[in-house]
């Protein structure tokens, strides 16, 4: 399952959910600032090393990206000519290296634009990876609910969100059942046929999943109500301790330092695509 907790003892597992949520926001924020593929790639490498040191097998952490591969390819191909840097630079015909559609003047591409869209691709991977490694793989849903409540998110909302996440694996199971049942009636699934056929297959898949999920949601509501959910919510207790420890404070200090440096460096234009671009220029000059 691409979304479930992986039990293990590690530094990341032991951090408080709040620290990891903050870390995720910091990484996402900095990823938006950075536009250089080498810098972004290094950050991605750091997160992958963190994930491996938290006993998360590569096979599991790469799984979601692998599944998103068609989407990523689609994103990259469109982003290549359409990213803002490329659109700006094609005003200068000297910058254009080639045209994406051969024998036409359509979709001109610049060298800088290619560097930029590579950074965008890494950004995507970085955010997906951080979300999984920092949140879904190493943090229990109850701890996320708890963190949200500490941040004054109303308890019913925070708890319901936690319960929702618990049902992701169950939803996965029923999706497989629905797909199997349709294949046994001659359905060819969402992987074959033209776009219209695939879209139809997808709708046929979604209807029973939605129907059974809505039905299940009613049963779940009855079950949690019967276990006192919502009873005197102000006085609700939490059996799992959530305490910020030394490692949380140290981690947050590092994150603040990181955030300040990113802000400083980007304001001096250092983490932008120029870095890789000038490196490439220099390499070309040497050759």
């Amino acid at each position, binding site marked *: 399952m691409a979304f*479930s*907790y992986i*039990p293990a003892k590690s530094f990341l597992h032991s951090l408080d959910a709040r620290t990891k949520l903050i870390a995720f926001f910091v990484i996402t924020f900095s990823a938006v600032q950075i536009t250089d593929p080498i810098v972004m790639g290094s950050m991605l490498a750091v997160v992958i090393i963190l994930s491996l040191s938290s006993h998360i097998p590569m096979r599991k952490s790469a799984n979601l990206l692998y599944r998103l591969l068609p989407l990523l390819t689609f994103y990259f191909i469109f982003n290549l000519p359409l990213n803002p840097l490329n659109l700006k630079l094609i005003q200068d015909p000297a910058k254009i290296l080639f045209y994406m559609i051969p024998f036409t003047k359509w979709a001109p591409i610049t060298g800088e634009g290619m560097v930029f869209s590579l950074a965008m691709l890494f950004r995507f991977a970085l955010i997906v990876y951080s979300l999984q490694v920092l949140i879904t793989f190493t943090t*229990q*849903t*109850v701890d996320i609910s708890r963190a949200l409540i500490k941040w004054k998110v109303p308890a019913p909302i925070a708890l319901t969100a936690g*319960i929702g*996440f*618990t*049902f992701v*694996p*169950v939803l996965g*199971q*029923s999706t497989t*059942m*629905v797909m*199997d*049942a*349709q*294949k*046994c*009636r*001659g*359905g*060819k699934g969402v992987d074959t046929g033209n776009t219209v056929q695939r879209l139809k297959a997808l*709708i*046929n*898949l979604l*209807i*029973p*999943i939605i*129907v*059974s999920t809505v*039905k*299940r949601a009613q*049963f*779940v*509501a*009855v*079950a*949690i*109500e*019967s*276990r*006192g*959910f*919502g*009873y*005197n919510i102000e*006085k*609700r*207790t*939490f*059996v*799992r*301790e959530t305490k910020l420890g030394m490692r949380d404070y140290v981690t947050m200090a590092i994150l603040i330092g990181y955030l300040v440096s990113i802000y400083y460096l980007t304001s001096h234009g250092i983490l932008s695509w120029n870095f890789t671009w000038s490196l490439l220029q220099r390499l070309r000059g040497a050759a």
Partner: protein
Amino acid sequence: MGTSPAVRIENLTWTYEGAEKPALKGINLTIQPGEVVLIAGPNGSGRTTLCRLLNGLIPHFFDGKMTGNVFINGINTREATIGHLSQISGLVFDDPLSQLVSPTVFDEIAFGPENLGVPPDEIRKRITESLEFVRLVGYEERAPYTLSGGEQQSLCIASIIAMRPQIYVLDEPTSNLDPIGTEQVFRVIARLAQEEKKTLIIVSHNTEELVTLVSRIIVINDGQVALDGDPRSVFAKAEYLLKTRIAIPQVTELFEKLKHLPKFRVSTLPITLDEAYAKLRELGFENSAETTPRAEDYEDAKSDELLVEADHVGFSYAESQAKALDDVNLKVRKGDFLAVIGQNGSGKTTLVKNIVALLKPTEGVLRVGGLDVRKVKTWQLADKVGIVFQNPDIQLFSESVVKELAFGTKAMGFTPERANERMSYVAERFGLKDLMNESPGEVDKGTRQKIAIAAVVVLDPQTLIIDEPTTGQDPDSARQIMNIASQMNKEGKTIIMITHSMPLVAEYAKKAMVLSDGHVLFQGLVKNVYQETEMLKKASLKPPQIIQLAHLLKIPQRILSVDDMYSYLVKRAGA
């Protein structure tokens, strides 16, 4: 409070919002502390509605119109909240996965007490105690969805135990479980009753197993209390119970049939196996030694045409080392009615998924209709093997019945003439003619199940596989599905049924295959499977009650059903 009854229901009538007639009408009931009550009745009779009254879900959660009053430990449920009542009366439902809302077993049990504001140290103590009670110590950090069905339902009960209620209301707690899981849950229930002296109210079709545990049976039919009394007095009305399709012990059913004959006249109908055995022994029906010859295995082979052929088939899931199937050999011939029997996790479903090419064997060769399943896609087999799954909701997706039926014929490229011919055939056969333009979502569950079967049969598969017709179904609708299958078998179709219900196997199937941990323990005629007591024990399966009785009496003849036993006894008595 010590003097008030656990439950007092006065003149209660409840109509759900939007319903035409009341789900319960004019109910008057009193249940004293420490009573263990079985609520019996057909599905849709109002049993679940009754449960919902007992912790205030009705009238506080569900919308509708209520007259009369319900008192739990003397508290009027109209004047209390569900949260407050949940500390007195705990509800457990049929589907464990809809009740488990936490990432770990530990958090699951903590959920209720946390909601009630119990201090963390006290919660920790309660978690340990309730895990000990249901024997799940050591499971604290496991994710609930990875447990077996029996463990999940035990966990649901443990989560209620941790809330310390005095009354336990269990609505079909075992209807989604296999025999091992059912036994596990019944053991927990028995300990709650006998050691903890709690008040228990159990809704179940499993009258045979609960008859010795409960002190009282209340039969609900059509929203009203039809019968109320101790098990013996309720089962004395066996004729009524059979007529309203309420499950009763097989031995009781037998004596209900026999009591018209002078020789078998009894003052009270036996309700347990031991009682029936004692009675028949007294009447001189015990034989000295069982000398039944083993039935010949080829006796039922109708044809030589091989439809499914497994040759040393093995299968392992990528994520586990253990083999889910190991060295399975199987020959299914045209016209067979095969039951694949075993607990959950024994490999039944894995085998069937291999047969329809949803999974591919990792060892050996498996051929379906002459095709090697490793070389075909599932949809290519759709007109050769059809599967009916348990839950119709996951199988239906079209806006009308006719479109639902057409999905397969279109996908398989049937010509319009053939598609029309098949569709009118199944419409006739499954009684769907007047419903063709209705939405499958709008009809009742029994009809939805029929639409799901019709949508498979429309492709005219030679072999029909039925996946666990009893799970999550009431006995009556399971039987309806089996009757359709049986009829199709008589017309020459091949049926493979996956089940852990031994009575269904005995009544319908001709051949049986017993699986345990991926191994074939037995393969042969159903007539022979029940003789192998050691093998059945190994697979944790028990013969149906009537067959157990036949074994006790050492009857030198194959007894598979109540009718078999009846004819045998009548013949012996006459001779």
